[in-house]
C-alpha cells in the first residue's frame, strides 16, 4: 500500500476506499444538497464561513454541502450498542481562505457512530495512519486528547469564559502569550508552568507517555490518562506506528469535539491533509445519544503534488489528407502497444511538447524529430 511517490488524487480515492472496504466500512453516498437550516444551526462546526445557497422548487432554502459529517450525523439513527461504520467520497463547497471565493474540494473520510469504545477509537485512528501512509512516503500523525487538556486547564483554574483563548494559544504553540495570559489571570507559577509544558509537548509515545503518567497523574482524570496511553501504545506498536506524534497543539473546537483529536501531515504539503477526532459533543448538540469518531482526507492538497510530465505526449504523429486512415490508425496502435501515448494531428499545434515526432508520407511513417 505504501508508495514511494505521492499518488495523484484520483488513485488515492481508490486506495483509500479499498482500505475502508476491507475493514467493513460501508460506502455512504449522499445528495449534493442539504437544507440550509442544518448549517445555520451548527455554523461554528464548519471549517469555512459561507455556504452556497439556492431556493428549491418548493421554496425551501437549500445549500451545496460545505461539510459531510453533519449530514451523516443527521441521517443516521442511534442503534443501541452497534457501531455504524461508514465512509464517503464526496465533493464539498467551501470558501477558500486566501481567495475568498468558493472552491470545490474532494473529500474522502470515514465515521464510526454509535457506542464508541477503545477498540473503535484505535481502529479509526489506525485507519487514519493507513490513509496517511498511502499519501506519501514521509508523514506524521499528531494526536491530542481534549479531555486530558481540559483536565489540565481546569486544574490550573482558567475561568470558563477564558478557556477558548487558552485553547487558541495552545493551538498556536504560543507559549509566551499563554504564560503572560495566565499571569494576568493571577494563576500561580507552578500551575502555569504545567500548562505551558503540556502545550509544548511534541514527541513519540516513548518520549511523552511517561511524562504524562508522571506529571498529570492526580490532575487529569485517570480514565483519560489510561485510554490515551492504551490507544497510543497500540497505535505505536503497529506497522506504521513510527509516524505517531503526541502534540497537544492539535486542538479543535471544544463545543463539538472531545477526547481524541488528530491531524495528519504529508511531507511537501504545507498544511494538514487529514483531520479528525471524537465529536460526541456535536452529537449531543444534535440531540443524539451515540458517540462518534471519524476523519477526513483533503484530496485537494495533493493536486499540485503529482509529478508533472515534461511532455504533453510521447509521440506526435502527423498525417495528411492523402493518408490511408487504416495505416495511420495501425501505426498509432503499435505505438500504444509499446506503452507510449500518441497524438494524431494533421498539423503541429503551437507549443506542444513531444518526445518523438513522426510523419506519415506516402504510406510510410518516418521519424522527423527525437527529443527523448
Amino acid at each position, binding site marked *: 500500500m505504501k508508495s514511494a511517490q505521492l499518488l495523484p488524487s484520483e488513485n488515492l480515492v481508490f486506495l483509500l476506499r479499498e482500505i475502508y472496504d476491507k475493514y467493513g466500512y460501508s460506502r455512504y453516498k449522499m445528495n449534493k444538497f442539504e437544507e440550509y437550516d442544518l448549517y445555520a444551526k451548527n455554523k461554528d462546526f464548519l471549517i469555512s464561513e459561507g455556504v452556497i445557497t439556492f431556493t428549491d422548487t418548493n421554496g425551501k432554502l437549500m445549500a451545496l454541502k460545505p461539510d459531510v459529517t453533519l449530514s451523516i450525523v443527521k441521517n443516521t439513527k442511534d442503534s443501541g450498542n452497534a457501531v455504524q461504520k461508514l465512509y464517503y467520497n464526496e465533493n464539498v463547497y467551501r470558501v477558500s481562505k486566501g481567495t475568498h471565493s468558493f472552491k470545490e474540494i474532494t473529500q474522502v473520510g470515514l465515521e464510526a457512530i454509535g457506542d464508541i469504545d477503545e477498540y473503535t477509537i484505535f481502529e479509526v485512528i489506525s485507519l487514519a495512519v493507513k490513509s496517511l501512509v498511502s499519501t506519501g512516503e514521509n508523514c506524521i500523525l499528531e494526536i491530542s486528547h481534549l479531555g486530558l487538556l481540559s483536565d489540565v486547564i481546569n486544574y490550573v483554574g482558567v475561568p470558563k469564559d477564558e478557556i477558548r483563548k487558552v485553547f487558541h494559544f495552545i493551538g498556536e504553540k*504560543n507559549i509566551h502569550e499563554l504564560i503572560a495570559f495566565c499571569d494576568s489571570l493571577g494563576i500561580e507559577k507552578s500551575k502555569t508552568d504545567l500548562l505551558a509544558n503540556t502545550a509544548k509537548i511534541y514527541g513519540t509515545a516513548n518520549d511523552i507517555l511517561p511524562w504524562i503518567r508522571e506529571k498529570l497523574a492526580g490532575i487529569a482524570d485517570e480514565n483519560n490518562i489510561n485510554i490515551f496511553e492504551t490507544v497510543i501504545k497500540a497505535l505505536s506498536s503497529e506497522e506504521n506506528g513510527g509516524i505517531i506524534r503526541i502534540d497537544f497543539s492539535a486542538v479543535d473546537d471544544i463545543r463539538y469535539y472531545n477526547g481524541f483529536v488528530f491531524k495528519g501531515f504529508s511531507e511537501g504539503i504545507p498544511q494538514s491533509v487529514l483531520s479528525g477526532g471524537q465529536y460526541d459533543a456535536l452529537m449531543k448538540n444534535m440531540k443524539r445519544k451515540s458517540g462518534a469518531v471519524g476523519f477526513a482526507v483533503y484530496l485537494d492538497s495533493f493536486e499540485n503534488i503529482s509529478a508533472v510530465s515534461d511532455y504533453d505526449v510521447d509521440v506526435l504523429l502527423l498525417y495528411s489528407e492523402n493518408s490511408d486512415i487504416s495505416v495511420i490508425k495501425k501505426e498509432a496502435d503499435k505505438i500504444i502497444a509499446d506503452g507510449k501515448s500518441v497524438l494524431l494531428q494533421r498539423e503541429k499545434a503551437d507549443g506542444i511538447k513531444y518526445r518523438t515526432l513522426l510523419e506519415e508520407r506516402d504510406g510510410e511513417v518516418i521519424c522527423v524529430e527525437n527529443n527523448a
Partner: protein
Amino acid sequence: MKTMLNVALPKGRLGEKVYSMFEKAGYPCPSIKENNRKLIFENEEAGVRYFWVKPSDVAIYVERGAADIGVAGKDILLEYEPDIYELLDLKIGKCRMAVAAKKDFRDNMGRTLKVATKFSNIAGNYYRSKGRDIDIIHLNGSIEIAPILGLSDVIVDIVETGTTLKENDLTVFDTVVPISARLISNKASYKFKSSEIDRLTQKIAEQTEEQK
C-alpha cells in the same frame, strides 16, 4: 544531506537585526551582507536559506510553506490570522496598536464611531469586544489625516514614538495591543523539522532573555 531551513526575513532594518540574531544562533550566511539586489541567500553548510520579503508578506510565505519559519510583526498576525505556530516573542521592533484622535475629540456613545485604519480586522475585533458599533473606513496609508479632514472620528494604527501623531495634532486615547516581532513557523514544517526549529528557537530565546 543536511536539512535546509527556509527562512523568510522582513526587508528593512528589522530584518537586518533579525538576521544577526539568526547568525548568532548558528545560522550564518555571509553572502547576505553583500550589497546587491539579490533576494535569496543560501549557506548549504549551515543548512539555511534566507529570503527577503515584504514584512507584511512574511506570514503568507510561512503559512503556505514557501518558508519554514519567518519573522513577522504581531500586527500582521492579528490582522490576517494566518494558520501558523507563533514560537517566540523576539522583543524587538516594539511598538503598539493604538486608538488616536484629535486632541479635542470627545467620544459620543450615542452614535456610530467612524474608525479609519489599515488594520480592519484588529479594529473590528477591538470594538466588538467593547460592544461598540463602528463604521470602518479602510485606508492604505496616511491614516493620520483622516480625523483632520473629518473622514473619521478616530484612527487605529501603529504608534512607535508618537512623533507623526504629534505633528498632525493627534493624541493617543487607548492602546489596543502591544506589538513586537514574532518568530513564526509553518505547522507542517514544524512536524518534519522540529529538532532544527526547536534548537533555533531555543538559541534565539537565550538572546532575547539576555536583552531583558
